[in-house]
């Protein structure tokens, strides 16, 4: 029985740190970081990549289209 494993790529240069993705993520994979980007906005970072299931909730709610989501079945 395999399981779905996801991975996300955040475009940190365009992220504005609204944190809507942090709230949307069911697995607490992402969190607001402490650093800021070139526009002066804090941006989200992946803090727990192993938990990601690739549900794409973060990408769908992101108003700036900063998150790209990948998903793959991993066989145990």
């Amino acid at each position, binding site marked *: 029985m395999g399981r779905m494993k996801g991975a996300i790529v955040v475009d940190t240069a365009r992220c504005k740190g*609204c944190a809507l993705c942090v709230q949307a993520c069911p697995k607490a994979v992402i969190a607001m970081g402490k650093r800021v980007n070139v526009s002066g906005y804090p941006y989200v970072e992946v803090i727990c990549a192993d938990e990601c299931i690739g549900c794409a909730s973060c990408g*769908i709610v992101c108003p700036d289209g900063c998150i790209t989501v990948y998903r793959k079945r991993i066989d145990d």
Partner: protein
Amino acid sequence: MNAEFNGIISPENLVYKKPELMNEVPMHYCPGCSHGVVHKLIGEVIEEMEMEEKTVGVSPVGCAVFAYRYLDIDWQEAAHGRAPAVATGIKRLWPDRLVFTYQGDGDLACIGTAETIHALNRGENIVIIFINNAIYGMTGGQMAPTTLLGQKTATCPYGRDAELHGYPIKITEIAAQLEGTCYVTRQSVESVASIRSAKRAIRKAFEASMAGKGSSLVEIVSTCSSGWKLSPVKANEWMKNNMFPFYPKGDLKDKTSE
């Protein structure tokens, strides 16, 4: 872990990315603004309908005035509130084009009320996307026609008072009464489920306009975290608790299958 992680990030495993139509330029909208989500949905629907080369958007005066920078389709900027009149002309000259307007509540429900109602009543085969955040966002958070009773803004700091300011206007309910409209709905974009529902609504409206069934109005109840002076997450909560009771979501009229 890294090897596994790297194995996942490859094109064949892609499940979500922003639509190709959306340009790489950073949007000027405030963090968490609903406009971005709606822009994405419009881009996705146009791509799914394969109408990239045959779509004309009409942008308003308001925060979305720069919409033409963000979606790579043809755009026409209209004078304040006149987007439905401009869209009428475009659609009549080019019936094979997908023509939609993208307007906020200040543009559509205030200065453009006449154009909006008459374009809808004539049954022009256009789609009006109506972003209702109950405030004037671009000019600094003044009271809008759709501002809720009791809601505080820069020009009604003690809350909107019906005796002094009148009542909030429900344009979508008015549109549903007009003979020319075929699809009138109210949606929102605060969660994954509501975003999917809003996308289906936009698709339905676009298809109805191409099928010549009449005009459609898709209202998106939205947030304005800067105008409301709340964080994006709290603005979504405020919208659910205060906007939805007065602006209930759902289809008000659907004659698309007739």
